[in-house]
């Protein structure tokens, strides 16, 4: 309550500002953009931040324009959008299941998308575009299966997590089978896809993701008040006038779409969906779903991880999923240890 400020305008308009949360969001946005500029300047042909900004403003030379606008900018934009989508998808899942483990990584959505992609790679030897479509279909199908199995009469946090783990185990087995059936070329391609990578992403990946985010992010944010009420249990939310079933359906569908399309664009980048909302929440120290902060955190995290992987191992040597996996895994362990000390798990 302390950091909440009310802003009241004539005509009965009033808004609530959480100063700390707003500061965190602005800070994360700045960090994400700064990391993006640095990332664009990183590679075999390094550029200073000033050069990058000048080129983005349309005042660079031809060589710089090619490198920035055609090669590196789309990759960074895909990174930002994938991070934002995963952050938002994860925050939605965690909030609806009232469980930090109820995130897409644990629930097997990533594995489901992988199964779709592997099927296209191994069985049909499809193009990159077809692989993305396969991943999208796999993610949506997995989301649907989890919905059917776990949603009967409302979600209970652990039920969703357990069903998700079960689904995840089955799909992982399918993925293993598909890999053993593949020849060595397909298998190598599949493994690179499975760690999650941004290399070689171009404008063809940017536009669909951008369009999807442009629709889903405002839709989700419009429901964030209702989601906040649902954190107190379905009964309380009903009593406060939330149409719980409808809101939950809209939000879960959005979360599955966001996660599946992010995975389709960049592969199953691990742990961003799990960690971004948790980190965001610890920074804002606000109860509630913290959706905007999770979006910004996801974007900042992914671009930073991509920069680390390029910086430390050279361009395209190490897929970004490895770095987010290490960062996320360490963070998760830290979280579990501290929560245990606090006596909550």
């Amino acid at each position, binding site marked *: 309550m302390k950091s909440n400020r*009310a802003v009241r305008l004539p005509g009965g308009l*009033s808004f609530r500002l959480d100063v700390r949360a707003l500061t965190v969001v602005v800070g994360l946005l700045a960090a994400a953009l700064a990391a993006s500029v640095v990332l664009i300047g990183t590679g075999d042909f390094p550029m200073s931040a000033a050069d990058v900004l000048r080129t983005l403003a349309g005042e660079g030379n031809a060589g710089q324009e090619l490198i920035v606008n055609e090669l590196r900018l789309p990759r960074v934009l895909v990174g930002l959008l994938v991070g934002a989508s995963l952050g938002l998808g994860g925050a939605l899942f965690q909030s609806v299941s009232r469980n930090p483990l109820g995130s897409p990584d644990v629930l097997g959505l990533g594995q489901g998308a992988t199964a779709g992609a592997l099927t296209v790679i191994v069985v049909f030897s499809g193009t990159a575009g077809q692989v993305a479509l396969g991943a999208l279909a796999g993610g949506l199908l997995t989301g649907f299966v989890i919905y059917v199995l776990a949603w009967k009469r409302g979600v209970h946090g652990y039920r969703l997590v357990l069903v998700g783990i079960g689904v995840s185990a089955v799909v992982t087995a399918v993925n293993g089978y598909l890999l053993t059936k593949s020849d060595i070329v397909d298998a190598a391609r599949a493994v690179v896809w499975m760690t999650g990578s941004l290399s070689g992403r171009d404008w063809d990946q940017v536009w669909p993701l951008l369009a999807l985010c442009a629709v889903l992010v405002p839709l989700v944010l419009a429901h964030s008040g209702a989601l906040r009420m649902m954190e107190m249990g379905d*009964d309380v939310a009903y009593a*406060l006038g939330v149409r719980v079933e409808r809101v939950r359906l809209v939000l879960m569908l959005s979360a599955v779409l966001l996660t599946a399309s992010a995975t389709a664009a960049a592969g199953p980048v691990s742990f961003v969906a799990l960690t971004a909302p948790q980190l965001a929440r610890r920074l804002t*120290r606000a109860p509630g779903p913290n959706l905007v902060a999770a979006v910004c955190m996801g974007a900042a995290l992914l671009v930073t991880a991509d920069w680390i992987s390029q910086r430390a191992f050279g361009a395209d040597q190490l897929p970004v999923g490895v770095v987010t996996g290490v960062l996320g895994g360490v963070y998760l362990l830290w979280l579990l240890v501290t929560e245990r000390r606090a006596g909550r798990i």
Partner: protein
Amino acid sequence: MNRLSAENVTLAYDQRVIAEQLSVEIPDNSFTVIVGPNACGKSTLLRALSRMLKPSAGRVLLDGQVIQSMPAKKVARTLGLLPQSSIAPDGITVGDLVARGRYPHQGLLRQWSAEDERVVRESMARTRVGELAERYVDELSGGQRQRVWIAMALAQQTPLLLLDEPTTYLDIQHQIDVLDLCADLHEEQGRTLVAVLHDLNHAARYATHLVALREGRVIAQGAPKDIVTAGLVEEVFGLRCQVIDDPATGTPLVVPAARTARTGGKGRQTGTAGTS
């Protein structure tokens, strides 16, 4: 005509029918208490009255309209509910939780008005949790926490307030504390209160209107003084007892018969009375 009523409702979870052709009127400005043995359908009835459960037949009317057909937020400004199970989100303060009760009065352009702030402060003062405003809800005792949830329901500013077993899990002084608060809300502010209570003596002491349910049917309803008799208790709960005047309030007081009297002198019967 009363503001809230159930007309010939059939209440069921999936295939399990709890009540059929059940009709109940909630008298305006009453403190109505619903009593009955476990699994008699009292909580189910409350869920139906608060549109949490859609009747498979019949209808629940609020101000003459079928409750399911009304806009959700409009219902939430008329009828509040304190459910049995509610979850305090991690790291939420008392003040923030109570403020969430204003949700049905808020919108995209009206997020936190001066009126909201005033009502929240009043609700907290009313339930004596004002000094806890900055504390975390997780740190509170059971009795304090229940008062915070009641404050949240009050912040909703509804003329009707439904409470599902508000005294469960509280020790005796906190049970009385919560019931006193309910009585105050009823008397001073003219609210219509509907509560499900386990304790028949509490019900007889606090209710102005009592509804006794058994197996999904209303066995008796009316002022406790008029309807609570040994015969009714035996019929509803299957318990032999004596009904005397409560020495403190003069309301009916149910005193279960001694074990020897109930079991025909053998005195060996186990099992719990009142759950048959």
